[in-house]
């Protein structure tokens, strides 16, 4: 009899818990769907609008003069790759280095200040970073330039990369570090080849997110790389970028330019996607065949 009661009780509490579990599950699934809807709407809209305006000329031709139809964004595509690429060259080593430093020296006062500054910098609006780059690079060096744009983007990347690197390195079990040191591997080599190597896929993910973030930046480039109707890959001259070109075309009164803005937005999204897949593939391969 007692057993029956407790059994019965067990069953109701099981049903209740099952109900709770199911409703929580439903809520989280609902939230996920809600999050995904805008994403797919944006991507879908972008695809329908963009694909129609995409053609080969878009990739190979320069922007057409006002009033002429056609033309493309060849210089902007190359420009975006160049500005972002150089921003990575500047920002990734500094960010990863700073992140490794923060993780290796947890307790010091200086480290706390660096960490705090990185957190503050992450919250600085990108347009402010643009103005900063304008003041320290564009003005002193007498003009808009690729380099100024890259520095501005790097300044946005560095705190992001620093903090993710630190977090990822801290996830590496300290035993691995000790195991390497106990083999007679020097400290610096242990940090690079064991600790950072183990955290690499996490660090890479952080870098990709930072690259994706800055590839879509427009405001800081308006003050720095500025834009250029002509072909230029020079570090020291203004350069065209997809975001700035899309911005200019999108607010223009010409239907053809607006169409091209859609195409530009689609290409930009495609580049970021390709970048993410590419790096993921590279690090996935590296994990299988290390060294």
């Amino acid at each position, binding site marked *: 009899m007692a057993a029956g009661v407790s059994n019965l009780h067990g069953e109701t509490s099981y049903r209740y818990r099952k109900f709770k579990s199911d409703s929580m599950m439903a809520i989280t699934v609902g939230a996920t769907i809600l999050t995904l809807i805008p994403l797919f709407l944006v991507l879908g809209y972008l695809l329908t609008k963009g694909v129609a305006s995409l053609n080969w000329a878009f990739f190979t031709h320069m922007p057409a003069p006002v009033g002429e139809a056609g033309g493309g964004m060849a210089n902007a595509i190359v420009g975006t790759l160049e500005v972002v690429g150089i921003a990575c060259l500047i920002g990734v080593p500094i960010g990863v280095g700073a992140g490794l430093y923060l993780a290796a020296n947890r*307790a010091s006062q200086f480290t706390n200040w660096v960490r705090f500054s990185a957190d503050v910098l992450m919250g600085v609006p990108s347009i402010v970073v643009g103005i900063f780059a304008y003041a320290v690079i564009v003005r002193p060096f007498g003009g808009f330039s690729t380099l100024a744009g890259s520095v501005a983007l790097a300044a946005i990347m560095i705190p992001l990369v620093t903090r993710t690197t630190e977090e990822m390195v801290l996830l590496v*079990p300290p*035993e*691995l570090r*000790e*195991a*390497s*040191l*106990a*083999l*007679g*591997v*020097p*400290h610096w*080599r*242990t940090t690079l*080849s*064991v600790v950072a*190597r*183990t955290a*690499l896929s996490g660090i890479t993910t952080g870098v990709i997110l930072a690259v994706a973030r800055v590839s879509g930046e427009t405001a800081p480039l308006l003050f720095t790389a500025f834009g250029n109707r002509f072909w230029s890959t020079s570090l020291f001259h203004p350069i065209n970028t997809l975001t700035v070109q899309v911005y200019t075309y999108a607010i223009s009164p010409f239907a053809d330019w607006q169409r091209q803005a859609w195409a530009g937005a689609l290409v930009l999204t495609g580049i970021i996607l390709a970048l993410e897949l590419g790096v993921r593939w590279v690090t996935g391969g590296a*994990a299988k*065949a*290390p*060294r």
Partner: protein
Amino acid sequence: MGDGRGGESAKVAMAEKLVVKNLNAYFHKNRALHDVSLSFEQDRIAAIIGPSGCGKSTLVRCLNRMHEVVPGATATGEVLLDGNNIYADGVDPVQVRRRIGMVFQKPTPFPTMSIEDNVAAGLTLNGVQISHAERHEVIERSLRQAALWEEVKDRLRRPGGSLSGGQQQRLCVARALAVQPEVLLMDEPCSALDPISTARIEELLLELKSAYTIVIVTHNMQQAARCSDMTAFMYTGDLVEYGETKQIFTNPTRRETEDYITGRFG
């Protein structure tokens, strides 16, 4: 290593590979070892036993200067390796660690490396230049010594983490052996292993004994009794008693040792 040392000192070095003199270890202000003095002999296995927190790990970590890796950890005193103090000014801890290998309680294969790369890690990471054939030879020899070769020879390129816990621990032993240290320190190498893997490691110790000086920390009395020649009993940072294993287990001179060994300890 086979250099022309004088007969007398060579004999001393043969007998006493590692001599610890008045070793004190600290974590910040806390003293974890009190004036520990003992010596480990060539070709013999020494076991260190004692209750949790008595300083066993701290002692072995002082023997290859791994103690100081912990922030705030310091040590005073002398540890003589072949008569040379590893704590002397100007001694590079990195060089010490290459001669005194260590296996930890938890298996720690490098997760980004394959089985063979794990074994060769000590060479690769130290930038040792060896030919492909030599590398393969080192890998096979070390894995055979660690009694792991037969189990992994067909999957050397699989990740180190794909092995079972016991296999991972033997992989770590192979990794430590690959750099051919003179002394092997093992801090509770079997505590995470099943009896079969434990037996393998113990057999391994007996095989390695002829070529290495081995110091093993263990919580397992039977293990200490089974495979060690010498046993050190530690209690609250002091070395209470050190002697032949047989004598320590059958006829300890100190009351605390007897209580601990017979399980009468709190």
